[in-house]
């Protein structure tokens, strides 16, 4: 069923892959983990038991990317990225699931996004499970888990000296073709590790009925309460692995049309040319962020737009905690709708 990758072979494996793939893996940037290109010679930073600070969605939807180059005469040349096949190594289950969720937004039947598609189609995701989840993680609450497999081609479980590799797709099988099968004892050990980890994560809030609570409390005073502390910066949305909003702008000096991540937390996000702003204060903006993830996503694709990675909780400079916010909504009586 599973295979064995001795940790000491990892470098060799990565450099073998590097011949035909571009590889991205977490490495140390300043003092935190960050996805960067590697050919196997760099020191990886995956043993620390938490996530990269910057979400790997940027490998599929870069923070800034050129959509097209244009000339003075109105002709535009699209700039669809071309690259070798890619491997993202060491992605955590929450982030891999987030990429899968982004597929639903960008690889649509009508108007599929060619830029995202070009990157996504060429990329294999090799994930690694979390043996010791952080207290800010809540993946199990939102239909994922520390060893969730959604979106991955293979999932690694860290067992001291070896990784137990569970291949999940044909691509995954090909990549790990030469590695031996795991013994039953190793399988059992991995299972124990996984279950121990699972037990460490407490459910953060109830998701059943949450959407109805949010929908019926659109005008609730709680939104103002949360917005009071909110600074209005873009940390929660930029570091979120599922937030995908973008802005399209022309960089006249480079003669390029670009798209940049945008965030509903900024005033300019919904500001119209007439200076009318449908979301004039932090209250509406905070509400938009939470509603989008826990209500509108469900309307659109019947999935919660959150994978419980906990980044917005960990890095919010004012300690606004989406888990606490949602719990407060859950505690509201159903009948005080629109209070």
């Amino acid at each position: 069923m599973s295979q064995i990758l001795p940790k000491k072979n990892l470098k060799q494996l990565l450099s073998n892959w590097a011949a035909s793939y571009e590889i991205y893996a977490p490495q140390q940037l300043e003092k935190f983990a960050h996805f960067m290109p590697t050919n196997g010679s760099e020191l990886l930073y995956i043993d620390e038991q938490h996530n990269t600070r910057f979400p790997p969605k940027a490998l599929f939807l870069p923070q800034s990317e050129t959509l097209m180059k244009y000339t003075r005469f109105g002709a535009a040349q699209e700039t669809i990225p071309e690259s070798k096949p890619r491997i993202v190594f060491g992605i955590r289950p929450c982030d891999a699931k987030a990429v899968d969720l982004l597929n639903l937004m960008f690889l649509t039947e009508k108007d599929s996004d060619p830029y995202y598609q070009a990157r996504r189609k060429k990329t294999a995701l090799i994930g690694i499970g979390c043996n010791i989840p952080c207290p800010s993680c809540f993946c199990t609450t939102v239909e994922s888990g520390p060893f969730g497999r959604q979106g991955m081609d293979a999932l690694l479980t860290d067992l001291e000296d070896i990784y137990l590799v569970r291949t999940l797709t044909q691509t995954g099988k090909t990549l790990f073709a030469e590695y031996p099968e795991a013994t039953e004892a190793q399988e059992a050990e991995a299972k124990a590790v996984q279950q121990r980890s699972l037990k460490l994560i407490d459910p953060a809030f109830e998701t059943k009925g949450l959407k109805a609570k949010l929908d019926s409390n659109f005008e609730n005073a709680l939104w103002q309460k949360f917005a009071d502390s909110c600074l209005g910066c873009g940390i929660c949305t930029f570091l979120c692995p599922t937030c995908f909003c973008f802005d399209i702008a022309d960089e006249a000096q480079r003669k390029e049309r670009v798209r940049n991540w945008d965030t509903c937390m900024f005033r300019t996000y919904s500001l119209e040319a007439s200076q009318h702003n449908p979301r004039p204060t932090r209250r509406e903006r905070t509400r938009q962020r939470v509603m989008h993830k826990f209500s509108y996503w469900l309307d659109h694709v019947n999935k919660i737009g959150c994978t419980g990675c906990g980044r917005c909780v960990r890095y919010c400079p004012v300690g606004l905690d989406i888990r606490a916010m949602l719990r407060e909504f859950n505690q509201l009586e159903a009948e005080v709708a629109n209070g």
Partner: protein
Amino acid sequence: MTDLESKLTAEIANLLDDKKVDVFIAFKKAESPLHPQPAFFTESNQLGDFVYNSLCQNNLAAFIPRYPLSARIGMVVRGCENRAVNHLVVEKQHARENIFMIGVPCEGLVDWHKLVNRFGEEMIAVDEAKDEIMISYRDRQIRAPRQELLHDSCLRCVHPNPLSADVTIGELKPEGDPTLARTEVAAFSALDNAARHAWFRKEAERCIRCYACREACPMCYCTECFVDHGVPRWTESTVSPAGMRAWHIVRAFHQAGRCVSCGACERACPMDIKMTYLTEKLNEDMRTKYQFECGMDDKTQPPFAAFNLDDKNRFEL
């Protein structure tokens, strides 16, 4: 609840009960141990969540420009927050008589970056004693000297005591050593241009343009920031080097003579970008060129607003 916290709670409760303030801005406990949440108390019965410790990272003065001038605001202030309030009063962002400050001499803030980078994300609680920080995990506890975890701005803090608080609780701390405070920026200035530039690039390159530094800063209260300005557009919209460097240069320069060295910008940054080496340089120049230190009183205009003909001799002839 610590001794200081109970004294503060009593004081705040009195203010709210006597209706001396409309809102009291302080901190309350949040789920994450590293980030107590700014809270806005209007009734004394809300004070159950009140918390005040070295992890209260934000400069609460940043919330003042959100209120109309007539709002009577109460605040717990440390030295830097007191100076920020002073300067906001200079810039007419609020009326001094409508702000009630409870001053607390500051022990220095524990930097969450330092904590996380050193002890990982798995901490479930962080407590403090006089000189020690206790970090609890699920299965163990670690102690670390406070001094090693203080934020850089606090390590070089010169004025930890509130200067013009209406009430001060706690014992005054000795003033910091100005020369010691300047060693860092002096050392940076002593590097050659290429080295300084390399450092600047390295820091600015990590920027994700979330503008947390701007939003956390009490002096960044403009309704429309220059980066949001559409016609003309001042900087590139992308995370290209041009855009990110322009942001860091101009953000810092707009603080010239207005920065109180609280370091809130740096603490808010999710990418560990150093920024105070820029603002400290400006502060240093303001001190040497114009003998100005921001926020020391609520009257003196900053140098860029206070030019006059005395500058005559500064023109190279």
